[in-house]
């Protein structure tokens, strides 16, 4: 089985947060202990064989070739933008415009589209399990893990030639700055400046292209140790809106795709190394 396992970049913050959350905060001696512990933890999870995210990749691979739906066919003829069934590098160019659907789609939207048009699969159950839990696997999470991994080692190449792609970027940027809700928060409240943190958690700056955006986008999907799940950017944005005290965003909605287009643009050129592993 061919899969790509990359090196682990920019790992410090997540690990530090784990260590600090576990109560290993200041005091000089404590600080030393914490650093040793971080080193130990980093070494431990630096080994791709120890990253449970790859279990999701494996399940996704099986799902990709599994015959399902009324047509009893696999997803292997699904076109993710690079041609029917071509997976290598597809994730690095998503979201993008698809002529057959006449819209810009992210990976989840495209997978759901393929399930319907290629397989004629009733996606109600798939959508019910859109986010996995330790007791319930998610086909969409697994497939995203598998497909994204096929772009590991490549760089994000935002697709912005089509007018609809340009429009999605502008909408995503507007959503990034759109304030509202019971806390008056926008994405930019937390991600509008460099070097800020919430409690002890470092916050990536998404207000401009740069290292923060490249490293963040390059490390999703990721295995979240605290949730025992592989998580996608779709889930991360859902969780952001929860923390912002906004309503739960619809899975695979155009608003989430627009934000993803914006974030990928900010992270342009970022090297994809997935699934990564985070707190």
């Amino acid at each position, binding site marked *: 089985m061919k899969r790509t396992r990359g090196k682990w970049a920019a790992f410090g913050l997540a690990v530090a947060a784990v260590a*600090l959350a576990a109560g290993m*905060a*200041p005091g000089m001696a404590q600080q030393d202990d914490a650093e040793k512990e971080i080193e130990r933890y980093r070494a431990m999870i630096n080994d791709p064989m120890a990253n449970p995210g790859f279990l999701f990749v494996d399940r996704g691979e099986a799902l990709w070739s599994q015959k399902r739906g009324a047509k009893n066919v696999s997803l292997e003829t699904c076109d993710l933008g690079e041609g029917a069934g071509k997976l290598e590098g597809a994730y690095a160019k998503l979201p993008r415009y698809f002529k057959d659907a006449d819209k810009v789609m992210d990976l989840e939207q495209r997978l759901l589209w393929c399930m319907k048009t290629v397989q004629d699969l009733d996606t109600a159950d798939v959508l019910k399990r859109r986010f996995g839990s330790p007791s319930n696997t998610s086909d969409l999470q697994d497939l995203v893990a598998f497909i994204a991994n096929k772009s590991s080692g490549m760089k994000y190449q935002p697709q912005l030639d089509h007018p609809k792609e*340009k*429009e999605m*970027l*502008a*909408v995503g*940027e*507007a*959503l990034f*700055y*759109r*304030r*509202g*809700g*019971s*806390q*008056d*928060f*926008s994405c*930019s*409240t*937390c991600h*509008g*400046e460099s*070097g*800020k*943190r*919430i*409690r*002890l958690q470092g*916050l990536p*700056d998404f*207000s*401009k292209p740069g290292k923060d955006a490249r490293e963040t986008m390059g490390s999703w999907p990721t295995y979240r140790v605290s949730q025992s799940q592989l998580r996608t950017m779709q889930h991360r944005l859902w969780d952001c*809106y*929860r*923390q912002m*005290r*906004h*309503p*739960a*965003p*619809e899975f695979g*909605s*155009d*608003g*989430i795709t*627009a934000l993803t287009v914006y974030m990928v643009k900010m992270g342009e050129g970022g090297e994809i190394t997935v699934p990564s592993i985070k707190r």
Partner: protein
Amino acid sequence: MKKTILAALLCGLAGASLAQQAKVDPAAVEAAVKGMWAKAGPEWASSITPDETMKVCSETRNAPSAAEFEKIVAREKATVVFPADGNVMGDWKKGEIVASRGTGGQFTDTPDTYRGGNCYACHQLAAKEVSYGTLGPSLLGYGKARNFSQEEAKVAYAKIYNPQGVLACSQMPRFGHWKFLSEEQIKDAVAFLFHPDSPVNK
């Protein structure tokens, strides 16, 4: 005039880093919002249709013009409701809980979930609490630095109630305006900042 210059300066401070602004069709943004939050109930109205103040702050990326700045400050200042007896100081120990907890108001919460102010997410307060964020300024020694002045405590109450009545497009939530925190909780938070025994002032 002086006031206008000050307002402009404050705007600059409040403004986020300005990336290049792409032209956008407001209808396309609204369509995306409506689709994304298609199933949200009426309790989420302030997310789906932000008020005039939020609209201006979003469009100007928190850097309103001097005229808009003054308009927002005037409008938001008028929403502040002070305690009937004029006493803005509650229980600092309860205020510490308000400052520490970040629960409530999330779509995974219930209406009964305790609503915290989550002050530590963005501000340093008591020296003993090392897990604090840096999105807002440090408030360490806040009351002491103001000689525990009751007038200053009232200013702090108004600021927590509605920060935009002081600084238009402040990133801080309008805790009292949205009734996210109760009057009692805001008083407790003020006491946490201003009581001489509070660890904020130790």
